[in-house]
């Protein structure tokens, strides 16, 4: 017995699981379900309802996740809630998961203190909740996967090599351009095809080029596969070590941090991450409304079979549907008026009444909705109790609980009406409008929001705040506009967060996106492929300088700040110089909007350069630094053709401020091995004049020396 005990201890701190599986029955499979996203992507919708309870095809997201876990054989699930935990708890207690017959025991862990996935896993470790390998999912995963094969592989790997593999991530194969591929979740992975080990993991973030460490291909691994056809299901099989690693590394916030940290330190810590790719089953993670739309339509189109609406897997009496041709699902007591057409892919909840001559396709309609006559719905997602009056047209929009749309309202794609909002009559909402009863600048009153009766709360806030803007919501409307055409950066963020970054590319033409596009473009087509860190660093430097400009911070302090950033991101001096030059040259562009006039540009740049001379001097020490700075300048002007004329002036200023030395400038100019564009740049008349002048000045000064 004693020997057995020591053997267990030797297996490592995390090996509390039975180390002799042939003797003991395997411990029940456990899962950690994080019912919080720790971000505000779904604001203002998630102000009224936590994300995990948002209805997907009239069933709360968390029910899909729990059904997936149960179907895959999980016997104990820990649900971690933070935001609106009481609502989640209440929902689950009413559901079949908390009946004593449920094969999957659901336990709640609630804390207001969780701020990230990292906090949750540290808590898992602190309370030592998991006894063996567990499944980690978020509360917004829809899947019909059976992870048992992946789990077996995972266990086998752990048995073969003691505790080396700590995590198995599950991916679904789907080619780029698939509608269920989330743009912001897009990843590039390098894997060892023999062992399925993850070697490199990187989010694409819209980049076109990627850099892989050389060591990847120099290793003894025979076949390295680089894949971009994978969709991250956000389902991972973790060993108890994962929770410990989160405790050891208190700076890990997300799973991405964890994966990156583990891969970077692979040689030191000796931990590995593996992956499992599924082709047949479905798995997706809803991170924004575009994904919401995509996954909803996948459910309706039966990709997630057997989790289809008519299966009524939640065993809820109000959720029984009949399925008929063209994927039309009808609940009980649905009434359809004369001449109304349900074209295809429509789900109608119990007790909904639809008027005459309506045309409905690709839509989900909740319970007890009232829809008037001559209504056209295409890609509309109506939640419960929505009222829609006559002659309304809705395209690709989300309308939350008990919202009301009055006569002759038109909703362009990607509108969001959050709960109890009223719009109309006779108004057209432009693309991407978000209307909520919560004013956008409302203070955070998270804590008392869910405990109070929300109705009362709303009455109060309504009295407190100014009236609704009739122009935005119509003459009888109620609600505040969350997104408008004003050039507020927050709004831009809002759009991006609700519908995901894909929206940006679709709406490039819109005037208000120009601002952010201007600043993003140089980054995305930077001539040299840059690593993430440099990019982040560049943004940080930009932010620092902006603050310095606004608050008049002295250069010494700026140097200090940039220095600390430099160390934080591990930036070499060469890179530092390039980034600094680039940031400063781009700085006026930010302020001048898109007005790219070389005259204006230079006059804006000049005072900045003068201010920040000490900054440059601090970093330019060796001649290679000078050259680096010059390369950065060259690159910048190559990218901004229209500003080309001012290059001579800029160089002149640098020279006059004694930032750059003449030798180096001449040296740079005479470099031969440049691109065609670089050569053209060098043919610029003013630049040539400047160089000529420099050469003459040098001769003169050397003459002077000799005298």
């Amino acid at each position, binding site marked *: 017995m004693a020997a057995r005990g020591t053997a267990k201890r030797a297996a490592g701190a995390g090996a509390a699981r039975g180390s002799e599986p042939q003797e003991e029955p395997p411990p029940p499979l456990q899962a950690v379900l994080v019912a919080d996203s720790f971000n505000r992507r779904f604001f203002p919708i998630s102000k009224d309802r936590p994300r995990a309870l948002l209805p997907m095809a009239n069933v709360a997201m968390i029910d899909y996740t729990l*059904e997936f876990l*149960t*179907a895959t054989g999980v016997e104990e699930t820990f649900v971690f809630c933070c935001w609106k935990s009481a609502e989640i708890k209440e929902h689950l207690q009413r559901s*079949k998961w908390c009946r*004593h*017959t*449920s*094969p999957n025991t659901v336990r709640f862990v609630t804390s207001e203190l969780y701020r990230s996935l990292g906090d949750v896993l540290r808590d898992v470790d602190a309370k030592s909740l998991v006894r063996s390998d567990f499944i980690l999912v978020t509360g917004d995963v829809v899947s*019909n996967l*059976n992870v*048992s094969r992946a789990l077996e592989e995972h266990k086998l790997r752990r048995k073969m090599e003691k505790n080396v593999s700590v995590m198995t991530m599950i991916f*679904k*194969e*789907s*080619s*780029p*351009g*698939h*509608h269920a591929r989330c743009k912001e979740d897009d990843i590039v992975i390098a894997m060892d095809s023999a062992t399925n080990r993850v070697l490199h993991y990187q989010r694409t973030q819209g980049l076109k080029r990627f850099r892989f460490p050389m060591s990847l291909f120099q290793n003894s691994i025979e076949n390295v596969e680089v894949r971009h*056809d994978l969709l991250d299901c956000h389902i991972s099989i973790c060993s108890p070590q994962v929770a410990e690693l989160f405790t050891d590394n208190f700076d890990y916030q997300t799973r991405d941090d964890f994966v990156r940290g583990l891969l970077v330190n692979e040689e030191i810590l000796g931990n590995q991450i593996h992956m499992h790719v599924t*082709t*047949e089953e*479905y798995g997706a993670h809803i991170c924004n409304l575009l994904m919401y739309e*995509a996954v909803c339509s996948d459910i309706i*189109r*039966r*990709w*997630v*079979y*057997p989790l*289809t609406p008519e*299966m*009524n*897997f939640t*065993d809820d009496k109000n959720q*029984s549907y*009949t*399925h*008929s*041709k*063209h*994927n039309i699902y009808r609940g009980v007591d649905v009434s359809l008026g004369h001449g109304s057409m349900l074209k*295809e*892919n429509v789900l109608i909840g119990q007790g909904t009444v639809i008027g005459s001559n309506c045309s409905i396709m690709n839509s989900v309609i909740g319970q007890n909705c009232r829809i008037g006559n001559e209504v056209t719905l295409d890609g509309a997602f109506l939640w419960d109790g929505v009222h829609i009056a006559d002659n309304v047209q809705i395209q690709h929009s989300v309308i939350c609980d008990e919202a009301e749309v009055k006569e002759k309202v038109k909703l362009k794609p990607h509108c969001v009406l959050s709960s109890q909002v009223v719009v109309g009559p006779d108004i057209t909402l432009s693309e991407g409008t978000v209307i909520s009863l919560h004013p956008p600048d409302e203070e955070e009153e998270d804590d008392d929001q869910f405990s109070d009766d929300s109705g009362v709360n709303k009455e109060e806030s309504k009295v407190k705040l100014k009236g609704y803007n009739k122009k935005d919501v119509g003459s009888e409307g109620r609600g505040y506009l969350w997104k408008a055409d004003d050039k507020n950066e927050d709004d831009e963020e809002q759009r991006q967060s609700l519908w995901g970054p894909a929206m940006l590319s679709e709406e490039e033409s819109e005037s208000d996106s120009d601002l952010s596009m201007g600043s993003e473009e140089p980054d995305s087509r930077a001539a040299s492929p840059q690593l993430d860190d440099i990019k982040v660093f560049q943004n940080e430097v930009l932010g620092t300088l902006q603050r310095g400009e606004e608050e008049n911070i002295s250069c010494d302090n700026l140097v200090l700040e940039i220095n600390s950033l430099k160390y934080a991101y591990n930036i070499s001096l060469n890179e530092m110089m390039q980034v600094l030059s680039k940031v400063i040259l781009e700085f006026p562009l930010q302020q001048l909007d898109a007005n790219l006039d070389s005259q204006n540009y230079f006059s804006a740049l000049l005072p900045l350069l003068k201010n920040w001379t000490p900054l440059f001097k601090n970093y330019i020490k060796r001649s290679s630094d000078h050259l680096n700075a010059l390369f950065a300048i060259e690159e910048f002007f190559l990218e901004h053709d229209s500003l080309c004329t001012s290059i001579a002036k800029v160089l002149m200023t640098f020279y006059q401020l004694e930032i750059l030395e003449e030798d180096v400038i001449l040296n740079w100019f005479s470099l031969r091995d440049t691109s065609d564009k670089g050569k053209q740049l060098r043919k610029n008349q003013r630049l040539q004049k400047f160089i000529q002048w420099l050469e003459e000045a040098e001769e003169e000064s050397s003459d002077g020396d000799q005298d």
Partner: protein
Amino acid sequence: SATAAAFIHEIRGSGPKRPRSEDTARQTLSLLRKIIAHGRWGWAGELMDLIRTEGQRMTAAQPSETTVGNMVRRVLKVIREEYGRLHGRSEESDQQDSLHKLLTSGGLSEDFSTPYPSLRANVIEAINELLIELEGTTDNIAMQALEHIHSNEVIMTIGYSRTVEAFLKEAARKRKFQVIVAECAPFCQGHEMAVRLSKENIETTVMSDAAIFAVMSRVNKVIIGTKTILANGALIAVSGTHTLALAAKHHSTPLIVCAPMFKLSPQFPNEEDSFHKFVSPQEVLPFTEGEILAKTNVHCPVFDYVPPELITLFISNIGGNAPSYIYRLMSELYHPDDYEL
């Protein structure tokens, strides 16, 4: 109870593999036996309500799995009979009430309210008998094979059916014949069927579904299995069967359906698609296709409706019957009051 929940989970198809009808029937019976043995009920009426609500739950979970409902009806009938016997009624009067009796009885004839202590044991005993009957169904059907398959015949079948497999294997022990299997895309269960048959040294050919009509002229008999026999003698069978049946009709080839009696359902095909089943389109157009999926609707039905006029003969565990006789078998198996659960 937990077992009921697990069972519902399984018939929904959330489990690892698609259940066999025979297993489903057996599991339903065992589950109901458990409910009868351990449930709280005092008299037959209460028990029947209990069984009925449980049955409704199970059939609602997967309407295409008609076997569940059929077994529930069988059990209800068993309870009625056992109660009637204890109540002191003779077998014959129970079987078929005369018109005169129906007129004079006036309203509800029975309320099943008299408690009998021995009812529980009797019902369980009868259910055990049913279970034993289930055991032998496939063998009973296979035993009739020699009457239908003759030497050097060409038999066509579609997809994979355990009953048909046993039927053909039984015939192959005595006779030599050739089997053509339509593969039954997109699931291609036909491949499995062909492998299993060829292992028994039956000369087997697999062909695509598109070739059914072309090959039909050479075929002597078509022998298929089915998911469900409806009350009008129609079939709910694996998709592709309708094509096969039409081709057989065109060539006047006899179409024989091998199906045990528990697949006989008292439902009529009036509700358009209520026992249809559409599964994930994965098999038809894989998810990896990418962009095109956002613009297309892909359907992947599992079953076909085959009208009774295309069917020549049913072979069940109690013998061969024509489709027109199905109504009669049905009234023997189920009580008319239980047609609607």
